């Protein structure tokens, strides 16, 4: 009885999830009248703006990941080592981006860093890029922090740190040679999530007027019929590839690397 119910729930979920996907895929293949073809995909890939915006977003994602790792790994490490009592507070702070809408964050940024402020980041393209990266890092913070903190839980941070210190290591060595390698899997899964978020993000990029992939998808969607469907499928594939890589790395880790 409960088993049947579970299967029904599963089937409903699967239909809810897959039907639009199948519909989109099917639609994206019907650009040429009376036959299935990849014409819509060809046109998307031939559009220089596709590669430009995708390239821009990938670069932003990489920058966000690097910045996020440099920010989150030392912070999570330090909190675990020296201030375990404030961990709940830090955890709460890292959750805030989930409850504060991106649009609020970006308007805040624009107010704080506009051309007449002390730090006029929005005055130049580069400055705006940096601002956008900060915004992305904020959005990714809940996932990144949680992933890294979970990774740190698997090792005895304090003992390993003290062992390294007694062997003469300073903080940079400890972070780079011990902490980071031991939380690499966690960092990577955080990184793939960040990547997926940045690739699809619309609000911040649009409001800061940067040529990112999200606004391009929206633009295309407003003006064409078949190409947006193809683009959606491509974006979906990228996201899933990220998830797949995440799984793969986790698996790979379990087999070859150290557990105590």
């Amino acid at each position, binding site marked *: 009885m409960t088993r049947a119910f579970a299967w029904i729930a599963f089937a409903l979920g699967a239909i809810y999830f897959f039907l639009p996907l199948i519909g989109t895929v099917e639609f994206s293949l019907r650009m040429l009248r009376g036959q299935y073809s990849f014409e819509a995909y060809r046109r998307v890939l031939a559009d220089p703006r596709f590669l430009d915006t995708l390239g821009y977003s990938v670069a932003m994602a990489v920058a966000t990941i690097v910045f996020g790792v440099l920010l989150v790994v030392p912070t999570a490490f330090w909190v675990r080592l020296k201030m375990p009592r404030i961990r709940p507070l830090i955890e709460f702070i890292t959750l805030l981006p989930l409850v504060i809408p991106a649009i609020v964050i970006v308007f805040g940024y624009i107010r704080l860093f506009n051309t007449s402020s002390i730090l006029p980041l929005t005055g130049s393209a580069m400055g705006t890029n940096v601002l956008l990266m900060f915004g992305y890092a904020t959005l990714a913070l809940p996932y990144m922090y949680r992933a890294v903190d979970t990774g740190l839980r698997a090792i*005895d941070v304090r*003992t*390993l740190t*003290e*062992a390294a210190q*007694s*062997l*003469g*290591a300073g903080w940079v060595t400890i972070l780079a040679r011990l902490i980071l390698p031991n939380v690499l899997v966690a960092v990577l899964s955080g990184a793939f999530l960040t990547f997926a978020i940045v690739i699809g993000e619309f609000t911040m990029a649009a409001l800061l007027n940067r040529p990112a992939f999200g606004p391009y998808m929206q633009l295309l969607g407003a003006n064409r019929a078949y190409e947006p469907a193809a683009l959606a499928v491509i974006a979906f594939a990228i996201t899933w590839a990220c998830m797949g890589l995440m799984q793969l790395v986790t698996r790979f880790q379990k087999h070859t690397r*150290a557990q105590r």
Partner: protein
Amino acid sequence: MPFLEIARLEKSFGALRVVRDFNLAIEKGEFVSLLGPSGCGKTTVLRMVAGFEAPDSGTIRIDGQDVLGLRPNQRSIGMVFQAYALFPNLTVAQNVGFGLKVKGTGRAEMDARVDEMLRLIGLPDLGQRYPFQLSGGQQQRVALARALAPKPQVLLLDEPLSALDAKVRVSLRNEIRAIQRDLGITTLFVTHDQEEALSMSDRVVVMNGGLAEQVGDPHEIYNRPATRFVAQFVGTLNVLEAEVTDPAAGRVRLAGQEIALGRPLPPGRASLALRPEVVSLGPAPGRDLRLAGRIAEVHFLGSVIRMRVAVGSDHVSLDAFNRPDAPPPAVGEAVELSVSPRDLLVLEG
């Protein structure tokens, strides 16, 4: 001049005084153990020497240099932890070489030293393994090699054997001691296992409630305990309550019997302590003090027979060797114990 000198060390965590007026001077190459019950502050002393905790007051000098201003990574100290603190992402060889690499030692020299250390701990072929592929005993050996590789001035070990099973523990403690002698490295070893402390150390510090109750060589600690705590914590002890009848002549009344200890005693009541091995069942040469008692328990352990004998309202434990031709005494049997007055310790307090 002592090599490692700890003077008037104090440390509190909040209202809890964990280390109190701790003094210790260790000679170069000496092996000293800190022995005491859980929570008495052993680890805290060690961590202050290593630099992981700052004392509230007092001094720590290594080779004449005050090290309190130095961070842990500046102190030239090797440390072995209770939990396996090997770096899980590095191989055994990389673990052992870690301290050398941090120092900027050249490749060739480092490899040679790592090989030397692995041979020293008897694991020359395991350099490419990862820590999780080693047994607990092997991991602790590697931890020892890692601590020793950069040639530290002082070696600190915090209960390095307590996570291992009994057999490995005994063989590894002998090995650690042999390596320590071999290298002549000044060592401070923390344990709550008295057998470990007595068998390994040049000197033992018995700690209680943050205080060093007695410092001395194992023979002295065991045979001439300075305080009641030391007497009771180290080894098995029988305590008999006696009434001093003649303080000057050292006569006491014990379980209804008048005996002479032959040395002056404070007036009033006295606690007399006896190690099980100084008591014999029946008359024995040189043990002319007799105590009448009754067998309360008998445990036949094979080569040894362990007995508890009721003497008045106290109990005395003693061991006798098994004799193939004589069965062990029966419970309830009246027996006579003999001891030498010399072996009766008078406990203060």
